[in-house]
């Protein structure tokens, strides 16, 4: 096995693969170094995975909105946190040419004590059942039902959803529950996907919403959803609506813009995003330090051999290429187990939390390239010790 690899490397390098031979000469140290690189890779991939899940899950509810343009209170950073805005804004927007239809959504947060006794925390979306509001076929189909009573649909991917309950709902059963003194019957499910905020989503009619949240008023929703007439330039339309509305209290943005701004906010201004970003930096640092340590120790250990090679007429380039060869081998050998471990953990965490964790090819590729670059950088720094290899000291 190693003999075959030696052959291949000799062929690739056009010289004896001294770096490789040095590494496998000390299998214990080699394994530790590879484990270190793999660990750093795993660390970075996990953090990027969480960061990706965070940004992915932020986009999910925006994608579910049946809208081109979103009006929110100007203090809103996310779909959930803005103040209510006057319903009059919807009517003003509707008067702008190019706006085909408009509807409002109330957003609130609710704790639901499930039949199995556990609590889940839900973002409640109160929609006008007379209008399409969400691009979710189950919700569309249930609109007539939502209109006639206190009915609700729950996100089946809700984190911590009672599995017995979910099975019953998916089989067509119902579940009545009481919240804030009002009884609601869950009649079915849909899927938006879990996030880092609430555990999941609950969709009800605006009437039901107002019974669940007694301090909210029908004239003050959280979101105004606008559809443009087909073929309309959304950016231009946003500008016209913006001009038509009184300044100051609301933001008018395309849904995509709003999702992007939310993502930026949550990844850079909220602790959760900052922590994951910090985790990536720590992983990079740990990986760099491990590789530097291994390579510079290796250079120090072989200083006499390198001095001998210098005496024989080998130049600086040879030593740099030996160390970079080692760096490349560590990078390649570390990436594979690191990625495999990350894939396993992704699958596990995704199954437990419902977070959209996926080991996407671009992420894997950038981590791989980053690992190689970092290893090469560490290797180059490690060769500074080579200056101490003085062939005159050999005799």
């Amino acid at each position, binding site marked *: 096995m190693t003999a075959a690899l030696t052959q291949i490397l000799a062929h690739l390098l056009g010289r*004896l693969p*001294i770096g490789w*031979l040095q590494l496998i000469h000390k299998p214990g140290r080699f394994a530790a170094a590879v484990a270190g690189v793999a660990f750093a890779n795993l660390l970075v991939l996990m953090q990027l995975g969480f960061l990706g899940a965070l940004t992915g899950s932020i986009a999910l509810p925006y994608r579910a909105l049946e809208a081109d343009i979103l009006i929110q209170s100007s203090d809103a950073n996310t779909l959930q946190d803005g103040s209510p805005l006057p319903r009059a804004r919807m009517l003003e927007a509707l008067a702008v040419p190019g706006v085909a239809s408009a509807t409002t959504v109330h957003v609130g947060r609710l704790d639901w004590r499930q039949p199995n006794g556990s609590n889940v925390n839900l973002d409640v979306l109160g929609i006008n059942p007379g209008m399409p509001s969400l691009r979710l076929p189950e919700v569309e189909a249930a609109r007539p039902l939502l209109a006639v009573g206190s009915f609700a649909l729950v996100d089946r991917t809700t984190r911590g959803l009672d599995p017995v309950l979910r099975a019953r709902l998916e089989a067509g059963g119902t579940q009545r529950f009481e919240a804030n003194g009002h009884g609601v019957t869950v009649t079915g499910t849909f899927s938006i996907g879990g996030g880092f905020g609430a555990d999941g989503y609950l969709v009800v009619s605006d009437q039901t919403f107002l019974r669940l949240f007694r301090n909210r008023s029908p004239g003050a929703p959280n979101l105004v959803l606008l559809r443009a007439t087909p073929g309309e330039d959304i950016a231009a339309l946003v500008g016209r609506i913006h001009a038509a509305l009184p300044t100051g209290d609301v933001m008018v943005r395309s849904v995509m813009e709003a999702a992007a701004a939310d993502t930026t906010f949550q990844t850079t201004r909220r602790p959760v995003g900052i922590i994951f970003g910090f985790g990536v930096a720590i992983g990079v640092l740990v990986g760099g330090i491990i590789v530097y340590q291994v390579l510079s120790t290796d250079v120090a250990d072989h200083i006499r051999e390198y001095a001998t*090679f210098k005496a024989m007429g080998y130049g600086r380039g040879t030593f740099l290429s030996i160390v970079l060869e080692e760096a490349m081998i560590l990078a390649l050998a570390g990436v594979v187990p690191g990625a495999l471990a990350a894939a396993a953990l992704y699958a596990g965490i995704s199954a437990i939390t419902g977070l959209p964790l996926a080991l996407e090819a671009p992420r894997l590729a950038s981590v791989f390239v980053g690992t190689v670059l970092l290893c090469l950088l560490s290797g180059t720094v490690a060769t500074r010790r080579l200056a101490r290899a003085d062939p*005159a000291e050999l*005799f």
Partner: protein
Amino acid sequence: MSAPPAIAVTRLNHAFGVGEAERQVLFDVALEIPRGALVVLMGASGSGKTTLLTLLGCLREVQQGSVRVLGTELNDASEQVMVALRRRFGFIFQAHNLHESLTALQNVRMGLDVHGPAPGADDAAAHVLRLLGLGERLDYKPRRLSGGQKQRVAVARALVGNPEVVFADEPTAALDKESGFEVVALLRRLAKQRGTTTLMVTHDTRILDLADRIIVMEDGRVKEGG
């Protein structure tokens, strides 16, 4: 002799340290070694033999005087010139200085690869090792070789590239009398076959019979044979 000598040294002085600590160790050294000769360098410990060898071998910069090796002046020579010259030398150190991660064959190949990749490198390296009686040990790493075997691998590494000058500093010090003599006899045989110039530091009196010339140093000066 009409051909230029392999090594010609005149008025060579060398000192270690600077200022207060400066200590001169070579004084007005002059010597001439013709091509193809096997010259033994003798002298008490500390008399400057190793220092002289490292200067001639382009491992140390010449401070004062003239050193011409293979027709090139080393005083003020650039690093590139020194490195290029080293490739035409073979070094045998007191310690074998083999690379522990490489097999005997791979160690010997290092002496060949410095001249660039060549198709028959493994065969050439194996050939020299067989000449030295190590045909059965080609794939052994140094750890599994005896002291004498290791030194013979080092000799093979020095000789495989057909060097024009071989510098050997007490190559037999780590060996018993028997294998020490064997190694030197072999060096001499190869020197005569290939016309290699050999400069060897040794205390081994039995080896003196094999030398074409003996240079004796004392307190940094050539006392005899320069």
